[in-house]
């Protein structure tokens, strides 16, 4: 096969781009929490929904790629399972808002998972990673009970050895700690939330009357 000068440049550029992309590794973050989280459980049967935006949230930078959405969805599945006596994952289609299954007491949705990673350097510009979630609970009539917006940030002034030893491990730690912290904030806030407890009491009362 003979390439024209124009074609050979394209081939070289494509090869270079492919090499660059293959160098950009996906960080492996343990998706599941090692144990079910601690929460004072609510005696309710709740549908679980994960929006497309939350599922597909991803960080891409020249050094690595992190599938934040995938990790977040797996962890929130565990979180919701600890929060409610029974959970059922809802299908993506048809939209659950059209009609909620009569057996469900409500629906909880991970609506957003927004992550940012700003790479600094080892000369006075810290690396910065942040994540913010939106979690909303709806009752069986699709009326919003409460939305929570937990977030967490991680900022660290990198030293030269952080990246020389293992850049992937360094970034994995930053992402892991931040996701963990945001989820912990959500759980502790929700566990004490009077609105959530009042909704739980209403459901309990309704079940007692039935």
């Amino acid at each position, binding site marked *: 096969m003979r390439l024209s000068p124009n074609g050979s440049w394209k081939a070289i550029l494509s090869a270079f781009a492919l090499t660059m992309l293959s160098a950009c590794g996906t960080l492996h973050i343990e998706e599941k*929490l*090692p*144990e079910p*989280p*601690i929460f004072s459980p609510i005696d309710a049967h709740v549908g679980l929904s994960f929006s497309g935006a939350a599922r597909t949230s991803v960080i891409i930078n020249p050094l690595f790629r992190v599938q934040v959405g995938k990790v977040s969805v797996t962890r929130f599945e565990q979180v919701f399972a600890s929060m409610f006596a029974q959970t059922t994952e809802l299908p993506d289609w048809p939209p659950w808002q059209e009609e909620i299954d009569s057996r469900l007491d409500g629906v909880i949705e991970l609506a957003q998972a927004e992550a940012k990673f700003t790479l600094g350097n080892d000369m006075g510009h810290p690396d910065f990673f942040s994540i913010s979630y939106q979690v909303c609970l709806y009752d069986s009539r699709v009326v919003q009970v409460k939305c929570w917006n937990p977030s*967490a940030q*991680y900022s*660290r002034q990198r030293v030269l050895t952080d990246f020389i030893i293992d850049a992937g491990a360094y970034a994995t*730690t930053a992402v892991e*700690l931040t996701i*963990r*912290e945001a*989820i*912990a*904030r959500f*759980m*502790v806030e929700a566990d004490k939330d009077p609105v959530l407890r009042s909704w739980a009491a209403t459901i309990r009362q309704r079940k007692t009357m039935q």
Partner: protein
Amino acid sequence: MTTAKFAKFITGAVLVSCCLFQAQAQTLPSIQVGLVSWPLDKTHPSSAFGGDIEECLVSRIHDVAPEIVLIPQRVIRDALFPLLEPATAPETEEEFAALLSREEVRRRLASRGLRYLVAFAGETMRPGWKGGILCGGGGAGSGPVGGAGCFGFAWQDETTALSATIWSLADANVAQREDAKAEGTSVVPAFLLPVPILAQTRQEACNELGSRIALAIRKTASEDPARQ
């Protein structure tokens, strides 16, 4: 007694004492102890999942009291998630005691056979370098003599203060408090080349604290054999 006989006697004595010590360590029942850094340094959240002080304490406690089986803080935090994270951990000792009294927390720690939880904290203070070192270089024109070098003397004081609270998990009470402090000075003399000689106060304070924790746990556990 000849030198050879004396050497044999000493070797024998050392071997016998080593065997006795080993036998004693093997016969002591194991004590499961959890380790967590608390209160947490919120400026370094990664310290909640390990660090040099934790590694040093684990090693020292094991050396002093091999019957103590330490559970690392990562395992404890995972078991108690989300209650012991940097953003959600208790801020006062009363809150910490309340956390340890929660039924689910007690159940999870008990399922690992834990009897004590050691909450350690501390920091190293380095106020800044004093003195000075001048470095320079130059050639001597066309001659063979030239080069570069440093000259001077710099030093930095360093203090590490560590503390630990040993919590008895049976009643969520403080069983013992221990602390350790080490002071030192890092020096950098420079005559042509700077030669840094760094103070090891973290290691010294940690070794001291580790020994104290080990002995305190051994003593506390022996005073309460009913719970073994």
